[in-house]
């Protein structure tokens, strides 16, 4: 049974894994959410999310930490918007389909 090393003196940023990693952890690119959005919602928002996700690592390597954090947050934001847009489109489609069905059979 091994225990993780003691926590660093400085608290890691939100979402960073605990122990075994440097204090300054590269922010999550939220790439999975962007891909999920692009695959499931079939909307450009997922691609925008992947664009931001692809910036995170490069910005972080260049030491532009704040911009990397912002790109990570933007990737998450666009993935969420894409999911919302996907749901909205689905609901509109369902309404049109139901209304069209009633129109056809009335």
């Amino acid at each position, binding site marked *: 049974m091994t225990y*993780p090393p003691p926590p660093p003196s400085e608290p890691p940023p939100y979402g960073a*894994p*605990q*122990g*075994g*990693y440097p204090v300054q952890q590269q922010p*999550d*690119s939220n*790439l*999975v959410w*962007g*891909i*999920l959005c*692009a*695959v*499931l*919602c*079939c*909307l450009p928002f*997922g*691609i925008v999310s*992947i*664009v931001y*996700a*692809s*910036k*995170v*690592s490069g910005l972080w*390597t260049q030491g532009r930490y704040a911009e990397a954090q912002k790109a990570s947050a933007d990737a998450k934001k666009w993935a969420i918007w894409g999911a919302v847009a996907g749901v909205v*489109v*689905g609901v509109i*489609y369902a309404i049109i*389909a139901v209304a069209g069905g009633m129109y056809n059979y009335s």
Partner: protein
Amino acid sequence: MHVRPLAAPLAVAAAAAGGCVCIWLANPTVPGGILPVCPTKALFGIDCPGCGSLRMIYSLLHLDAAAAVRYNALGVVAVLFLLWAFAAWTYSRLAGRQVRSWQHLRWSAPAALALTLVWFVVRNLGFGPFPALYV
């Protein structure tokens, strides 16, 4: 509040299973079904990178890998990687520590972006072997 580590993965798995049941019952391979056509295709008549994904998932559920690749080859790859990410995420929650997965690699996001854009272009090209990719 302590949340059981498997609650979230089980919720995701349940949602995915529910979606698969819907796709199985609705059978998107038959045109005019209840499942919506991709808005990009409906509005502009072109294939987006995700077009054919419902039929791809339907084919995968029926263990017809060839048809799945035919409907959306990149989508099949995406499904495999998403399953990988799901497994790593579930294991991370069980083990109580972050397990590195493909999406944490440095070039994953640019590669995903490039693949998506290339896929978007080639499946809409009208010459050579490319029309075979249009669904």
